[in-house]
């Protein structure tokens, strides 16, 4: 009997075990333990989540910036990047007849970076439409911010690629690539929408989220009523509109609309007599999830300890073509103590544009606005204003007023001089390649090695299937 009992128990155990294993195996829906889900913020987002998205927009606007600057600077023979990746001295200079590839870091990084930022802005816009956590007025603060950033990023895409997809909110139904002019029309209307979103606020109203890199725009003089405000650490929404208009001026100039640009400039922080460095900035950090300045390169310490290997080398023509005494050359470049060559290329100077890997990079500073003012004035045929503005820049660089050999320089002379000042004021800031392209001057660039070619536009990334 006892044995029998044991056997029965054993058999029952088997049954119970099988039953338990079978019954206990209804799995719960998996959630990602490693991060918040996109769906979770798209509906009923909390204020905290909205703010995280807004900060994400600002943070990702820096994505791809370092590669974009070095690559376009190389194409424009402003610099060489000597580093571990041979494509920086090969593909980008068209070595031995090679063409730019549409699936390499130099053609994809800035595209991915800009659209990542645009996507985050679109996610924020969608989240705003699907939450009741703040009222409509406050939502407009976020919207104006997000649209301004989308417009800025689209301008960057245009500069590198000459075309852009504007309608990208739905990843499964992307809009077409629009031509250069058509995209600029969209950009300018987006900037105006943003301005209108931001216009319903009082002079002391601030964003509900923190915003970084806009410290220069905070008016601490009291003129805007700041004397009654105890918080000068955050930008007001009206101060942000100054930035929005600066970008609008940029878009207007690129669209060839001189008088429009002059209007936008007058509503921005453009100041012909103000500090050239004043403006909105990308800020960097080394903390978790943050990014370092992607253009900074360690300076060579000495001839014994040179840094030739991961280094931005100044193109010799930029040094040689400079007017004697131009302070911008010494400020932005230094002689290499041991100028070794790489890939058959060489240069006497290395970059000194930024002091450290957390130094901020200007998004758009007064110096560029003054140059835009000069350009807009040329486009609007206010040649005298253009000459004045150019001389402001020249005098800041300690090279005095330009002698054109005539008291009334021609539009062509001023354009040439304006571009030359842009070349030195905005060196290694992702302008030269686009400036030469839009003025059809890329063919004036020097060829450094037999078999090299000049490119002035990046191919659209392969993944776009164009």
């Amino acid at each position, binding site marked *: 009997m006892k044995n029998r009992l044991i*056997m029965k128990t054993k*058999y029952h155990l088997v049954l119970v075990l*099988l039953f338990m*294993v079978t019954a206990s195996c209804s*799995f719960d*829906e*998996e959630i*990602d*333990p*490693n991060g*918040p*889900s*996109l769906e979770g913020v798209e509906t009923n987002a909390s204020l905290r*989540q909205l703010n*995280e998205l*807004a*900060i*994400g927009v600002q*943070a*990702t606007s820096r994505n791809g910036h370092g590669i974009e600057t070095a690559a376009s600077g190389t194409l424009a023979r402003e610099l060489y990047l000597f*580093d*571990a990746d*041979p494509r920086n001295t090969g593909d980008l200079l068209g*070595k*031995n*007849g*090679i*063409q730019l*590839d*549409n*699936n*390499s870091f130099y053609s994809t990084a800035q595209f991915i970076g800009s659209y*990542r930022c645009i*996507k*985050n802005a679109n996610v924020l816009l969608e989240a705003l439409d699907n939450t009741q956590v703040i009222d409509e007025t406050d939502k407009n603060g976020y919207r104006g911010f997000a649209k301004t950033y989308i417009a800025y990023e689209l301008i960057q895409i245009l500069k590198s690629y000459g075309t852009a*997809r504007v309608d*990208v909110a739905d*990843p499964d139904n992307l809009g077409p690539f629009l031509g250069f002019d058509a995209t600029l029309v969209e950009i300018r209307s987006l900037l105006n929408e943003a301005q209108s979103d931001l216009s319903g606020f009082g002079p002391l109203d601030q964003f509900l989220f*923190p915003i*970084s890199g806009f410290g220069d725009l905070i008016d601490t003089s009291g003129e805007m009523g700041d004397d009654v405000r105890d918080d000068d650490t955050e930008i007001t929404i009206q101060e942000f509109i100054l930035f929005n208009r600066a970008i609008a001026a940029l878009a207007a100039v690129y669209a060839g609309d001189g008088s429009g640009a002059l209007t936008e400039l007058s509503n921005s922080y453009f100041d012909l007599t103000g500090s050239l460095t004043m403006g909105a900035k990308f800020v960097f950090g*080394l*903390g978790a*999830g943050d990014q370092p300045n992607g253009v900074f390169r360690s300076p060579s310490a000495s001839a*014994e300890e*040179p*840094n030739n*290997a*991961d280094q931005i080398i100044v193109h*010799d023509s930029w040094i040689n073509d400079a007017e004697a005494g131009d302070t911008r050359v010494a400020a932005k470049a230094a002689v290499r103590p041991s100028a070794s*060559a*790489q890939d*058959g*290329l060489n240069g006497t100077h290395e970059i000194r544009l930024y002091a450290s890997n957390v130094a901020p990079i200007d998004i758009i500073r007064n110096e560029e606005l003054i140059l835009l003012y000069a350009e807009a004035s040329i486009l609007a045929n206010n040649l005298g204003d253009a000459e004045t503005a150019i001389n402001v820049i020249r005098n800041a660089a300690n090279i005095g007023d330009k002698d054109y050999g005539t008291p009334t320089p021609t539009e062509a002379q001023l354009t040439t001089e304006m571009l030359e000042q842009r070349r030195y004021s905005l060196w290694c800031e992702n302008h030269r390649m686009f400036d030469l392209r839009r003025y059809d001057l890329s063919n004036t660039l*020097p060829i*450094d*090695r037999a078999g090299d070619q000049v490119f002035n536009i990046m191919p659209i990334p*392969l*993944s*776009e*299937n164009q």
Partner: protein
Amino acid sequence: MKKQSQISKGLLLFLFFFPVVLFAQETITGKVLNEGTGEGVPFINIVEDGTNNGTASDIDGNFSLTVSNLPVTLRIFSIGFTTKLVTVENAGAITVQVTESLEALEEIVVTGLGSSIKRANLANAVSTVSSEELIGNTGQTTVDGALYGKVTGVNITASSGAPGGGTALRLRGISSINGNNQPLFIVDGVYINNVEIPSGLRFASGANRGNEENSGNRLADIDPNDIQNIEILKGASAAAIYGTRANAGVVIITTKKGKGGKTKIRFSQDTGINVIQNKLGLRPWTATSVFNSFFTPNPDDPAAEARSRAAAEAEVAAFNNAVASGGLIDYEDEIYGNVGFISETKLSASGGSDKTRFYIGGSYRDEEGIIKNTGFDRFSIRSNIDHKISDIFDVSLSSNYVRSNSSRSFTGNENEGGLSFGYTLAFTRPWNNLFPDADGNYPNNPNYPGNPIFVRDQAKNEDSNNRFIQGIKFTTKLLTREKDKVKFVVNGGVDYLANETYVYVPETHQAQVGNQEGFVAEGRNNFTQFNLLAFAVWDHTALDGNLNLTTQGGVSYLEQQANLVNSRGSNLFGGQTSVDQSVNQVIDQTRSNQKDFGYFAQIEGNYKDQIIGTLGYRLDKSTLNGDVNKFYGFPKASLAINIANFDFWQFEPINQLKFRTAYGETGSSAAFGSAFTSLNPSNIGGNGGLSVDTRGDRDIEPETSAEFEVGMDIGILDSRISFEASYYNRKVSDLILSRNVPSSSGFTTETTNLADLVNEGLELAVRGDVYRSDNFYWNTGVQFYFNRSEVTRLDVPAFAQPGAGFGTGLGTFFIEEGQPVTQIVGNIDPDGDGPIEASLQQVGNVEPDFQMAFNNQFTLFKQIDVSFLLQWKQGGENLNLSRFLTDLGQTSPDLETPEGQARLGTAANAERFVEDAGYVRLREAAIYYRFPTNIVEGLFGETVEGVKLGISGRNLFTITDYSSYDPEVSVNGGAGLSSGIEVTPFPSSQQFYFHLNVNF
């Protein structure tokens, strides 16, 4: 017996209906002796032929069997012995002599989760590698590395030559690209973890991804010495019963078990060296070539030309100076020229009684690499206990603890890290002295941001692992009857791995100065895997014993948890090596948890060993799928017909002629996280922000393989010569792919079911005892196999596989309908004169045309064993981007030749760097001397049974046109499409061993 019939009454209610038969009883007693030694044979099966009435001999070979009536034919069989049939007329004592068999034909192969079958009856091409084949020739660091050339249909590539892993095993081509492309490894019923664990060194080296960090794969923790045999289920038709984890095949590893009888103690000591297999050598520089290499004429700009001339003349002066004072420095030799010492000590004991058998093994391997300060050591201890609790219950325990450490230093791809040796060496000029001065200060490398001597001496990349693998199997014989046997088995186990990684780059490293200012990364990674099978097996005999049916069914559960934490510090305090001694700290954490649950059932029928058929089905669900509770079904069916076992077969020389066919399906779920679209931290100005990243697919389904296999096996002259041929066609449907989505969507990659893929191939193997005599014995084996793949459906436009190459500029794997999945594609401009004609072209295919292995064993004068294994890989191309770097640094060894100079003038596209990666290699060779018994006895007396001495080598020579270190290479570790792309790997090594084996 009575007891058991009462159990069956319970069972009748439970599952099946069993006829209850009573029978008369006669008792036969006897002893089974080994014809060769005269000793009793323990635990051999003695069965009344045609029935399932049987017993096993005890430890001395004695047995007692009760039969229903006389006369009776007894079938006496066991692995390792030739089956013997004995007719017994009278009850009482008998003596039976059995002979040891020449293995192969009677080998038992796993066919289900709870059943096995004689190889002669198998319907699939399951490859088995014995302990002797695995480690009998030469020393082996890792299990996967030991399989080179030993199995048809397998393709092995090494992502790193560093000791201690970095190997990828592919069975019958690529079956998954972003899912798991590595086979499922099962050790004694425990699903084991074979992860490559990233260390975070990419944050100092600038490597693009974790899989460029060249981590080892953790199969390296398994000691090859413990292994009794390895069965490789290569395709879906054999592996279907493993369901959703088996898409890339299954490797079943069985460790050594104790045998009854006298306790055997084995000791062995291997001592050897690692040296670089293939040095590329120094470019034979001349003053003229130095000048020409670094001078760029520039007629348009005389000033620039003058500067270039001055720089080139400075290089020439440095060159002349170096030649005058001691010569050029061969940095390749300096870095890769270390002679690494290898020592492996193994001690095992096995034995047992009729109730309990044990195997206890311990080993310690310490291996130094060909780069100073690299190496691998592994301490492994194993105990396998089998205990027969009663006639009803058996329990087996297999326990393994492993401690392994490795130091892998820095190799492979990087960006501006100045760490990877190959990268650094490509730009290091042999006239620059980089050795430290008397005060220990290392000079800067003027041409690259890293001094390789400094990195070798001061930077660290290490990992250590503590690992427990515990398996348990509990068998209950619910019913043992003449015609029916039912057993219930619970089998499972735990694999727990605690891994620590450590990367340290001093703040004085050239690339760190002014940048990170020192870097340290500490990883703490825990993995727990748990799996359980519970099933019942019913053996039924019908048709007067002519038909055996084995039916099994059960459930399976698997859970895998991982928690990877990587903390990194940069801007280190002077000389400090801990994460907290830094200014900037970053911590990453990645967790995953996955569960699978499945049902399976299978029935096998065997009619007189003539016709053997199997039908099976598995249902699986997994939390990795979009719908976590949806079951996916995986059927299988197979049929084998042994022509030579039919009565009409009278042709004696051919003892086996088998035709077999099999069909099966398996699956592979997406990698953890593929279903999620999550946000990642993206911070600025000290504020926490969120950003979109990868796009997931909530509806993701498992990719499934359906494989059809046909084959034939022929055995000639009592299987002295055997021949095996198999053809397979495997279709992978709904292949899970990560692809680059239009990045204007804000996402860069998406993982989803996108494509179909077909692999087909042929595998042939011949093995035979060519010559057998007292003083000369020669056994030889030849294997030949190839695989072809084609993408047959692709729902999206053709795309470059993310993370598998360097863009279409330099070459990348490219998923394209109608093309092999292993193709390498680049952007090629045929005449190099303009952008219009540049187009994507296939420049190569990493799939070999075919592979062959030639394996030989000789025994001379009974005491000397000689063996060698020759491997031939024909075709298959690699993309050698190491050469891109050495060309750029002007250090390629062939640059003094016109061909080398001509290459420098061509466009740096994929076509320029594709090379044929075929080779012929003497993979293993060994000579052993076994001391004759009388000498051993004379020297050591009775205590020592045998002494064997030997020398052996691995990778002794390689014939190849490939210009770099080793055509077996992968820059992206073992994952997905990885092999065949080279960027400055850890060079592979040659090993030489001296062996001493003593048996007590």
